[in-house]
């Protein structure tokens, strides 16, 4: 397939692997975090761990929108669907996130709540148009990649006077999460980041400069294809070897320094930072998420239905929080593969295919079940 197969070429991968093997110094360890779930998925699906020397270790980051949503946020959505009788629209993965008391949106639906799976916020707008007598709420989740479409939909809803439509806004900011990981005391020790692909097409490479400058961590922005990831790993190893910490861009076919100013302007027109937002795993982080600006408050489901946020502790025994901080591996969790599987997820990281636990369970668990080194 043109423009895809080129980035999955086995021979090229072997060539990059040979470079990595040659250049990685045997006397040291390289601990690299791939921030995005998209990278986690590519690493697992293509078995990239087998192409890396054992002293080059990939640590999964928190860049999976479904994984970082805390239980309290899903509880809000379930409350709206169950108690307020709204049509709750959401992406497929979000339907399976475990909430309080064994609930999930999927389960709420089997119990009669009106929960609908959509492929985009456009579908939710259409449902609102088709059901003018009913309230329609879209569970808006995601990093900077999915925020511009939400902003565009809000402007569209405002222009149409679609007053039965609103969003439960859970859009979060990538740099805030990276700060949290690096600033955590006693947190994970890292030698560099494989930087976000799609997020960076929107925000550009500039927002990562601070991590190179202040924290001395190399960042290489990479696409989601396996060769992108391999190349980024090689570039990170070179920076580490040379004692450099810079933001480099492997994904030049899509990412520029300034990103997409049009999308940024759209987001800025509709959203403003929240003072604080609770993340699963990373805790309460200041200015790490977005809310609708006052002029669009009518579309804010939290205000419209008066649903307050109630923090709920994670399931006892679930290690999602430490896994999202890069401090633990999925196989370190006691309930991994026993109580918690993709069919019966207990923690959010087992839900989405981008989640570290789901990726390890579905693609990599043969490694650890034999007592071998984990991916």
């Amino acid at each position, binding site marked *: 397939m043109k423009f895809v197969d080129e980035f999955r070429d086995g021979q090229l991968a072997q060539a990059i692997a040979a470079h990595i093997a040659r250049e990685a110094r045997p006397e040291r360890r390289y601990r690299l975090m791939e921030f995005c779930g998209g990278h986690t998925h590519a690493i697992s699906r*293509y078995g990239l761990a087998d192409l890396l020397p054992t002293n080059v270790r990939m640590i999964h980051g928190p860049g999976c929108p479904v994984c970082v949503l805390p239980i309290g946020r899903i509880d809000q959505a379930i409350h709206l669907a169950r108690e307020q009788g709204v049509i709750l629209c959401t992406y497929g993965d979000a339907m399976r996130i475990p909430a309080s008391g064994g609930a999930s949106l999927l389960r709420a639906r089997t119990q009669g709540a009106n929960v609908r799976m959509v492929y985009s916020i456009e579908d939710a707008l259409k449902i609102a148009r088709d059901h003018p007598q009913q309230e329609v709420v879209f569970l808006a989740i995601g990093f900077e990649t999915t925020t511009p479409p939400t902003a565009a939909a809000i402007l569209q809803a405002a222009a149409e006077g679609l007053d039965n439509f609103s969003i439960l806004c859970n859009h979060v900011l990538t740099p805030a999460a990276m700060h949290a990981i690096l600033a955590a005391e006693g947190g994970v020790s890292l030698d560099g980041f494989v930087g976000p692909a799609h997020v960076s097409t929107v925000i550009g490479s500039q927002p990562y400069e601070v991590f190179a400058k202040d924290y001395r961590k190399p960042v290489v922005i990479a696409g989601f294809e396996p060769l992108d990831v391999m190349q980024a790993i090689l570039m990170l190893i070179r920076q580490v070897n040379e004692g450099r910490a810079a933001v480099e861009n492997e994904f030049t076919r899509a990412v520029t320094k300034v990103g997409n100013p049009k999308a940024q302007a759209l987001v800025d027109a509709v959203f403003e930072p929240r003072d604080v937002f609770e993340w699963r795993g990373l805790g309460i982080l200041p200015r790490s998420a977005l809310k609708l600006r006052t002029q669009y408050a009518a579309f804010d489901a939290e205000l419209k239905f008066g649903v307050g946020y109630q923090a709920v502790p994670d399931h006892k025994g679930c290690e999602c929080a430490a896994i999202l901080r890069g401090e633990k591996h999925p196989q370190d969790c006691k309930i991994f593969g026993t109580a918690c599987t993709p069919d019966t997820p207990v923690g959010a990281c087992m839900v989405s295919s981008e989640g570290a636990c789901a990726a390890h369970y579905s693609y990599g*668990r043969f490694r650890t079940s034999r007592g071998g080194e984990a991916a």
Partner: protein
Amino acid sequence: MKPGYGRPLDIRHGRIDMSHGGGGRAMAQLIEQLFMAELDNPYLAQGSDGALLPEVAGRLVVATDSHVVSPLFFPGGDIGCLAVHGTLNDVAMMGARPLYLTAAFILEEGFPLSDLQRIVSSMARASRETGVPVVAGDTKVVERGKGDGVFISTTGVGVVAEGVTLSGHTARPGDKILLSGTIGDHGMAILSQREGLSFDAPIVSDTAALHELVATMLGTGAQIRVLRDPTRGGLATALNEIASQSGVGMLLEEAAIPVSAAVSAACEFLGLDPLYVANEGKLIAICAAGHADRLLDAMRAHPLGQAAAIIGEVVEDDHAFVQMKTRLGGYRMVDWLAGEQLPRIC
């Protein structure tokens, strides 16, 4: 009913109503003028509560399958021929020669008779082409909103030749895994139709009856241990079933698994893995390593096996994991499908 004393069924404009399932004259007319007219054969013509069939020598195989596919008509087929192929293939995977089919229809009030005729006619064509008559049937009607047009359940009966024993429990380490052609065609044909996606070359369902290919394969004398058609859940799920039943592992070679360019592109676009997408005209064969090449040659010589390939081998593994060497040279698991990838695919 005496000809000339009733108005013939208005197939062009008519619709199913509750009386078509009521057991009265309307139902008799529907059966005679639509079902019997299309599916005509001496067993069905007996017109009794069941079909009386001649004696059969050999062990019998029975398989049954319900079909709820949406949309009813899709590129490469429809629910009618699918209901014939699906059940015949289940019989064939037992190494049996299919002999008879039965069909039960659940019709929704308001369903156009013209669509029903298209479906039954397609079923009749598939039955003629495969040489397997539909010898008994049933129709029920449910109120509007209680069904979705038409659901069809079919049951197949076949006979197994002496010496043929196929079972999912008999794969052994060292055996080769063969696949009869490209994967994912049926699922992506349905999905692209459903989502209104169009590609340069339309993706066409691979729905087909595999019993002749199976007969050819059995005719080679190759030691075939398992045959299975990878329908819902795709290749990945079928291999996991076999691995788990036989208590063995499998090692696949990603580069050896045939996928058409169109299916590959559509899967990429929709974020699906072709390993998990349904097929309706493909089979997996597991056979003794020394006989694999001979079997492969025979499969490739058959029109339904032209793109057949050896895609991997059975290995020892207490965990019964299916693993795959990726195109990049790394290894991954090919796990069971979690959840429901595509509802109502067959």
